């Protein structure tokens, strides 16, 4: 059964990419709905299978590592596969209504969308260092293509900038992989970990890990390498921005986290962990401040991503050289942060797109008085904002709580300031948008109500992110599932 599910999971996005390439936008939309249905069902079934039976390794082509490529299907991976299915389904559905079928180039949205989805699954499941590189490139190129779609000069500038950053990041990662292969003679992450743990290879070479982490951090837009993100996420069409912020940046972070958790203990060091954590903390502060200063609505949301990504990098100091319990707590917190940010940020971008559509302007000031029309999108935007601020009962709060506990327990109290100040700063930019919408002394009477389906999607996502805090315990319990047996 799981064999079929795996095949379906790998096959569907790639096949649908081809199918939608051959038809136009309207037909592609129908085909995509079908594909989304299939993919969501398969992801759900796989998640359920792993939740009940535990994780396993999947050998592509029947060749075991190190000769072949293995996929690592564990609780964490299927959680992210499911998250991707949810968010991508929402964005795809939104795009099918939001994008104008009259523009001939929008037909290319669908194949790129499906390739992006395929690439994300490659990364979540990947257990082979080089295969992860290919997956990263798949994601980057599809994402750049989506940003550039439409070909306006500013979009192209953003796309080129994004592409350059992504290429440099991938190359740094690949160089690290080359060194690892040279040292260990294998590309399987599990093999490398095993060789390090049983002492076959003496640790001490930090440089390959640093290279890989640098490349991945660049692709994740960690401060101070975040410059490419806001233009790209701000200028893309809203469903695309939602995909990029919610999922794409998480892919490179996910790899970095897996590398760190497997190899960091042997190849990393206290200083490296603290350095990355400090950069993450600065990202939180600086990103929030810049988000507060933006005049365009989507730029606010985009800079907020820079800030929220900063939290993720607290994983590095909070898992290095601490007890397993603390490390687990930090990992759980970060996982919740990834999930809740993905849901909330997708909701926020989609809602922002609806609001822009409604008021016909992308400026924050233009929202003056819209609260009167009770737009659902404003409500969804606010709910998502609550999650970003880390207020209860959202997933963001649950994440923050776990991270606070981990910081306290590990004695690294300096992260408390980052966590608390970050929440307050994000409140500043969310409330700025809200405040604008409450201004009542304008004579805006024109307000375009977007189609209901466009309004429903961000609301669902926002509610999911809101409710995540309440069901955090079951989600986390699946994530922590061990492998069937302990070895391959």
């Amino acid at each position, binding site marked *: 059964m799981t*064999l079929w599910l*795996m*095949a379906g999971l790998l*096959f569907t996005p*790639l*096949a649908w990419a*081809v199918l939608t*390439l*051959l038809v136009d936008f309207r037909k592609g939309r129908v085909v995509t709905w079908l594909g989304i249905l299939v993919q969501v069902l398969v992801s759900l079934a796989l998640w359920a299978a792993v939740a009940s039976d535990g994780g396993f390794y*999947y050998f*592509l*082509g*029947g*060749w075991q590592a*190190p*000769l*072949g*490529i293995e996929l690592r299907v564990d609780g964490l991976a299927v959680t992210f596969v499911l998250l991707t299915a949810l968010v991508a389904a929402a964005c795809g559905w939104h795009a099918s209504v939001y994008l104008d079928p009259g523009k*001939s*180039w929008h037909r*290319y949205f669908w*194949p*790129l969308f499906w*390739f992006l989805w*395929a*690439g994300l699954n*490659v990364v979540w499941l990947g257990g082979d260092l*080089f*295969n992860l590189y*290919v*997956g990263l490139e*798949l994601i980057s*190129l599809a994402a*750049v*293509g989506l940003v*550039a*779609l*439409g*070909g*306006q000069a500013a979009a192209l500038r953003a796309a080129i900038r994004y592409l350059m950053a992504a290429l440099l990041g991938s190359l740094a990662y690949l160089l690290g992989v080359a*060194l690892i292969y*040279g*040292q*260990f*003679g*294998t590309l399987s992450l599990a093999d490398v970990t095993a*060789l390090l743990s049983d002492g076959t*290879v003496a640790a001490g*070479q930090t*440089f*390959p890990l640093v290279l890989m982490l640098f490349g991945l951090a660049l692709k994740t837009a960690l401060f101070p390498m975040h410059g490419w993100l806001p233009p790209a996420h701000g*200028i893309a069409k*809203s469903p695309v921005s939602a995909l990029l912020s919610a999922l794409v940046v998480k892919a490179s972070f996910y790899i970095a986290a897996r590398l760190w958790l497997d190899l960091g203990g042997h190849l990393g060091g206290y200083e490296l962990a603290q350095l990355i954590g400090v950069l993450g903390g600065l990202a939180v502060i600086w990103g929030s401040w810049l988000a507060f200063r933006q005049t365009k609505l*989507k730029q606010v949301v985009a800079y907020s991503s820079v800030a929220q990504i900063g939290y993720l990098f607290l994983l590095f100091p909070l898992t290095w050289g601490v007890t397993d319990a603390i490390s687990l707590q930090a990992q759980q917190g970060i996982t919740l942060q990834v999930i809740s940010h993905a849901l909330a940020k997708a909701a926020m971008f989609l809602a922002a*797109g609806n609001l*822009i559509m409604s008021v*016909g*302007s*992308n*400026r924050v000031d233009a929202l003056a008085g819209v609260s009167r029309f009770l737009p659902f999108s404003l409500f969804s935007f606010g709910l998502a904002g609550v999650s970003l601020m880390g207020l209860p009962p959202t997933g963001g709060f649950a994440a923050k709580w776990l991270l606070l506990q981990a910081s306290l327990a590990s004695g690294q109290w300096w992260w408390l300031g980052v966590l608390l100040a970050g929440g307050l700063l994000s409140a500043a930019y969310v409330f700025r948008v809200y405040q604008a919408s409450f201004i009542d002394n304008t004579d805006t009477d024109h307000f375009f109500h977007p189609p209901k389906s466009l309004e429903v999607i961000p609301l669902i996502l926002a509610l999911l992110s809101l409710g995540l805090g309440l069901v955090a315990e079951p989600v986390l319990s699946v994530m922590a599932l061990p492998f069937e047996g302990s070895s391959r």
Partner: protein
Amino acid sequence: MRVLSVVTMTAVCLAFAGLLGLAVWHIAGSPAPVNLPGLLAENLDASGVEHPITAVLLNFRSYDTLLEIGVLVIAGIAGISMAKTTSLEDPDLRTSDSLLYALQRWFVPLMLVLAGYLLWAGSDRPGGAFQAGAVLAASGVMMRLGGIPMDFLRPGVLLRLGLALGFTVFLLVAVASALAGEVFLAYPAGFAKPLILVIETVLTFSIAMVLLALFVSAPVNRAQEPEEGEHE
């Protein structure tokens, strides 16, 4: 200021190269604990091809190759999405150089043959789909420069079919075995060699199409879309 920044950059790059060199030197000092080439040689017979590189590309690590073709197709899609006219081909860009015209009458057939040879050679010596596809694309580039009309390069369904053909066939082979209850990308026993050959052939064609499409998809018109929220 400018000098300072150049000095800083130089220092950064030198430090990077130095560290990298040091790491390479250290790693080179001890042998790798896993003997992958040995393992490969043991399993080569089961792979269906004689040349180890092709075996790695199309059997042991065929997932990489599948995705790599996906990357190529993405680039092709993104490229043609930039072109907004019915034909990618722009007559104004053709030269009417008679020497070039004469030359390509000799060269194009020769290059086609070369591409065929590279494809065929891939099974037991260096060569293969990508090399053949690149040569094929190069002959297309030459034709375009030389002014031979290439109206098939309009962003219609045929071009898109051509872009996707190789990838599609590869994908279908990959899933066929999975439907039979095997893992994804496993070749049915005994069919590895013919299937690999089919994949290589269609891949050659598609790779050439992608590269050619990317070359000719010049931005020939200036239609553009306003940013969200700005009025057209």
